[in-house]
């Protein structure tokens, strides 16, 4: 063998040595390929594991924490929600449509592999500068890919977020999240139990697509990445729909012992993980795996990432019944092997052994790296911002309009109009608000879902950025009247072998963990995507928080927009002079610097709990959280839906641009009927909540006065037109 054979498989010399020790011999090519993918960062989390342990993962409602295909949380009455987010960044950078489409397909399989019926999808996306032609192509392609796959399988895409920043120019982020609904007793696990039980592969046949995808996802992008186009899988949503329905049908029987999605690292991963979890072994013969191409080698079959496949471990003697159900849906189901008790993953080809590796060595015993970390130099430089050098603009109308015509603050309708967000008729609060809400048919319950992350904050201060990502996601959930239940996190960073990147990663995880502890929201699943770099330049750290919340009475759901003229507009929380890291500074002054807004998580919790009390008491008519773009942006956003204006008076001695566009945390805009104001103020005072009465809903103009001087005076329609048209202007 060549001296550096390991390099071709993405392994280090030390890792190769360790493999030799495990096997007690030189590995063959098939085995090296299997180790290569399973010990990649994508599959093994070898760089992130020690840090991920910091997440709080326990809670009264947690039924399944990290480690399975998806996390599961209890929503009461014997029902539970399965949730998971996953990245498909590298494939999407090379082939946006298929990359995004198969990202959706993969996350959906993770959910129904738990036995849950997928009920909603969300997508958290990041792209580079939207002026750039390549970025436009990636953006349009990714949105079309999500639409193409999600619409076809009949799962509504109800939410997500998209932001543009030049740090993502060569490396977009595509994180897809899926949630599913399940009864407690019906949860399925990815475990190969029961010696002698048949192991089946069901769904699509196996081709040469996606070979080495997991390894590809574990290296930086470069000019050569185009050559990896064959490592991008091709999706067939129709096949997935059939697979989904066939699996849901088979879950009604007791034939299935264990089930696992064939995702990254294909059969190698599914076989070794199911065996490893059950402390068993598996023996298969690759010649029994249905192929879509002739002449495939055992290596190719074991590493193929062909989509729309599942691994089933079924009760012995039930093979024919299982096949019958899959046949009904026009799908193949083939026995490829059986469960053993020797802990080995043994792969044969027409009876001849081609690979023999302890399952645990592949699935659990990848080397763990305790990476070096170091605070990056840019941190101190960028945190300094002298506000005296930034003039307060004279014409705030102009500023407001300019902000709404920037890609980060404009309407997302151009995107979500391409997604079927209504199919299954559960979407009670549609995209465009704070969080989307789905009803649970047959109950009064509603499930609120959102994703959130401000990566500029995370770049300038990953710890606080991590805290804010959690707090802001929770605010989105609370704004609908739902109580946050759990988190799934999509952690997107650069190359972890660089100490500065690893520092960002570690700090962000510490910040997220801190917020999770203080707000009482556990992490139940997640995904790490490293190596998001192009030509050596990393993306902004982007730890995306996917969050699920529960509202017990769907009739109590609150939406973000103003309802009726005459209602009183109240700000919950405080305006502070915080302009650092704001969208305003970025758009108006081209500055991405300054101190990230401060956050007091104890205060955050008090405010969020207070709002939930208001919702429970049926006090408020609308609720919107104040985030990117600040108070003026948030107020305008509440005006658009019903073309209702406002007349607002603010008295304050802080900078006027900070009042209007600063991004101080822990703020909500609520509206209330005038008759209920006394009651609200009483409740506010008992709970010691900072607040101010801003004004009222009135007419069709947005009028904001500061210290008696009119600063903003624009027709709602005029702003709305710009807000709605911006994305289309960029991409058409």
């Amino acid at each position, binding site marked *: 063998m060549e001296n550096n054979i390991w390099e071709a498989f993405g392994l280090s010399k030390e890792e190769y040595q360790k493999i030799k020790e495990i096997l007690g011999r030189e590995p063959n090519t098939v085995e090296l390929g299997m180790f290569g993918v399973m010990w990649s960062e994508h599959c093994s989390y070898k760089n992130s594991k020690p840090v991920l342990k910091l997440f709080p993962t326990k809670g009264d409602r947690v039924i399944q924490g990290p480690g399975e295909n998806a996390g599961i949380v209890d929503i009461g009455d014997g029902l539970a929600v399965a949730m998971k987010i996953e990245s498909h960044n590298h494939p999407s950078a090379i082939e946006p449509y298929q990359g995004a489409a198969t990202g959706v397909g993969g996350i959906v399989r993770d959910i129904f592999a738990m036995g849950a019926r997928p009920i909603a999808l969300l997508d958290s996306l990041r792209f580079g500068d939207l002026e750039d032609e390549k970025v436009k192509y990636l953006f349009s392609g990714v949105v079309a890919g999500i639409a193409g796959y999600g619409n076809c399988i009949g799962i509504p895409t109800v939410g997500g977020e998209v932001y543009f920043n030049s740090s993502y120019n060569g490396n977009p982020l595509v994180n897809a999240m899926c949630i599913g609904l399940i009864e407690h007793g019906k949860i399925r696990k990815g475990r190969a139990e029961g010696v002698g039980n048949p192991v089946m592969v069901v769904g699509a046949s196996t081709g040469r697509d996606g070979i080495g995808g997991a390894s590809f996802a574990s290296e930086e992008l470069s000019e050569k990445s185009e050559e990896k186009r064959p490592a991008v899988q091709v999706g067939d949503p129709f096949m997935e729909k059939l697979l989904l329905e066939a699996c849901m049908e088979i879950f009604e029987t007791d034939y299935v012992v264990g089930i696992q999605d064939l995702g990254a690292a294909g059969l190698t991963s599914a076989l070794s993980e199911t065996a490893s979890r059950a402390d068993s072994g598996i023996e298969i013969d690759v010649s029994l795996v249905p192929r879509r191409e002739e002449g495939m080698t055992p290596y190719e079959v074991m590493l193929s990432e062909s989509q729309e496949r599942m691994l089933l471990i079924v009760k012995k003697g039930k093979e024919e019944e299982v096949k019958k159900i899959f046949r009904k849906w026009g799908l193949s189901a083939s026995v490829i092997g059986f469960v053993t008790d020797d802990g080995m993953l043994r792969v044969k080809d027409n009876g001849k052994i081609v690979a023999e590796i302890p399952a645990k060595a592949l699935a659990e015993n990848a080397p763990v790296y305790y990476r070096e970390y170091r605070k990056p130099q840019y941190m101190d430089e960028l945190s300094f911002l002298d506000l005296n050098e930034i003039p307060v603009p004279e014409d705030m109308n102009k500023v407001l309009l300019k902000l709404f015509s920037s890609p980060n603050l404009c309407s997302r309708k151009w995107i979500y109009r*391409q*997604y079927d967000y209504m199919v299954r008729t559960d979407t009670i609060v549609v995209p465009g608000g704070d969080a989307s809400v789905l009803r649970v048919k047959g109950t009064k319950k509603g499930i609120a879902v959102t994703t959130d992350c401000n990566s500029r904050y995370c770049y300038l201060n990953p710890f606080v950025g991590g805290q804010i990502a959690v707090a802001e996601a929770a605010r989105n959930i609370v704004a609908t009247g739902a109580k946050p239940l759990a988190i799934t996190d999509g952690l997107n960073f650069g190359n972890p072998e660089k100490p500065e990147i690893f520092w960002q990663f570690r700090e962000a995880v510490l910040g997220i963990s801190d917020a999770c502890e203080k707000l009482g929201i556990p992490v139940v699943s997640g995904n790490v995507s490293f190596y998001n770099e192009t030509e050596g330049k990393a993306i902004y750290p982007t730890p995306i928080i996917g969050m699920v919340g529960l509202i017990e009475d769907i009739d109590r759901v609150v939406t973000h927009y103003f309802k009726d003229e005459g209602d009183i507009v109240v700000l919950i929380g405080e305006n502070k002079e915080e302009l650092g890291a704001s969208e305003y500074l970025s758009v108006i002054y081209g500055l991405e610097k300054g101190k990230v807004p401060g956050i007091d998580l104890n205060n955050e919790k008090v405010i969020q709990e207070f709002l939930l009390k208001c919702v429970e008491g049926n006090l408020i008519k609308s609720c919107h959280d104040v985030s990117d773009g600040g108070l003026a942006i948030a107020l305008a956003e509440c005006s658009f839906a019903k073309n209702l204006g406002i007349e607002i008076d603010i008295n304050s001695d802080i900078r006027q641009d900070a009042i209007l566009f600063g991004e101080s945390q822990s703020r909500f805009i609520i509206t209330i009927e005038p008759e209920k104001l006394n009651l609200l103020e009483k409740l506010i005072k008992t709970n010691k909540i900072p607040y101010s009465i801003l004004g009222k809903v009135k007419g069709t103009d947005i009028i904001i006065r500061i210290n008696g001087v009119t600063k903003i005076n624009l027709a709602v329609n005029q702003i709305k037109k710009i807000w709605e048209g911006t994305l289309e202007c960029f991409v058409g």
Partner: protein
Amino acid sequence: MNFGVVIFPGSNCDVDCFYVLRDVLKVNVDYIWHEDRDISKYDCIFLPGGFSYGDYLRTGAIARFSPVMDEICEFAEKGKLVIGICNGFQILTEAGLLPGALRRNKTLKFICDNVEIIVENNQTPFTRLYEKGKKISLPIAHGEGNYYVDENTLEELKKNNQIVFKYVEDVNGSTDRVAGVCNKKGNVLGMMPHPERASEKILGNSDGLILFKSILDYLLSR
């Protein structure tokens, strides 16, 4: 009174139609598998939305060869009620039960939105409880809803009063803004908008429920 909702491989809105019929209107309803041959017990059959056979080749082009479609053609011939919604409409045009074809939206993009619709014909079993000329709001969700007929056929449709729904504004490029058409006899309706998504107060819109109630009213009045 028995309703049936056909499941083709790739149907998505089967569950939504079923839910409105069983849980909102509390009528008898069954799923009909696309390979079933006996549909004699039904009074009205729904062909639901979705992506039958992945919409591969052409929307509805493969589904129309499903065994159940032979039976549905006969069923329609007998004057029984057939309604195709979205993908169901596409299948009905492919099967020749309705005139015209559905092409890609003129924007070449999938459109999911609430749109305004005018009820053009309230003399069908499906629309008898609507006011003629009334503007209603219904969701659409399609990539191929651009209804096409040639001029002669359009004239004929108008003459026979076969245009049942029209979009208030041009949303997808459809000829004459047609959103739904029926056959000459009026017992087969195809429409791109989704009434089953607008049949409950909690969904913020119940304009679609009137369509379901019209069918019930018609069947009860026979």
